[in-house]
């Protein structure tokens, strides 16, 4: 791995860590419940992107399965909490 790719991936991981910190700030400090759900949504997308970068770093295909699972469960949980905020019931 040449320094171009190595430092590019390091910079990408650094930027994604900053993004996750921003989302974490809104998750902890958000004034309302929907702010926190939105921050969680943003946080799992950033984590999924970080897993894609780690897949390139370790040259491994396993991280795609993990990223797919993170995307799947993140969508289900965000939608379930949003539905709960909307109606007070997840499944009516």
């Amino acid at each position, binding site marked *: 791995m040449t320094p171009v790719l190595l430092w*590019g991936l390091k910079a990408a991981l650094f930027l994604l860590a900053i*993004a996750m910190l921003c989302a974490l700030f809104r998750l902890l400090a958000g004034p309302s419940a929907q702010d926190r759900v939105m921050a969680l949504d943003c946080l799992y997308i950033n984590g999924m*992107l970080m897993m894609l970068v780690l897949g390139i770093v370790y040259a491994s295909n396993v991280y795609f399965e993990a990223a797919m699972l993170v995307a799947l469960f993140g969508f289900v949980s965000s939608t379930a909490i949003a539905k709960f905020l909307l109606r007070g019931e997840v499944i009516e």
Partner: protein
Amino acid sequence: MPEFVAVPLPLWAEIVTAVFAVVGAAFAAIGSFGLVRMPTFFRRIHTPTLGATAGVWCMTLATIVYFSMQGANLFLHAVLITLFIALTAPVTTIFLMRAALFRERQKDGDVPQAHPGDELGLDGEGRPRQPPQRGTSVPTPD
């Protein structure tokens, strides 16, 4: 970082991968920084979509370039993730917007009132609308 890489790539492939990875991560960082910067929920809901669209697409292109050069055939697993995100992110956003509108109306917040009979499930006064009885006509918004 570990040193093992299966196949050393040509330089142009590494440059393309690095550029796409950095650009995608920068999109995600800008979108997430909007969460900190924007003042209200209805402004904040716009910003993470930058990371969910452009960020995910750039990162997918980076992985496609890298793993296609590694394995000498087209690697399209990451497109599945991108298509899934492209399908599900708007659904989550719409649910969150409806929930936020509902809660703001219940708190008498500064949001527009619902039309009578619209699909948000509220009547004109912001109360949850009763389901229509069978055989009666539902009033339509003008």
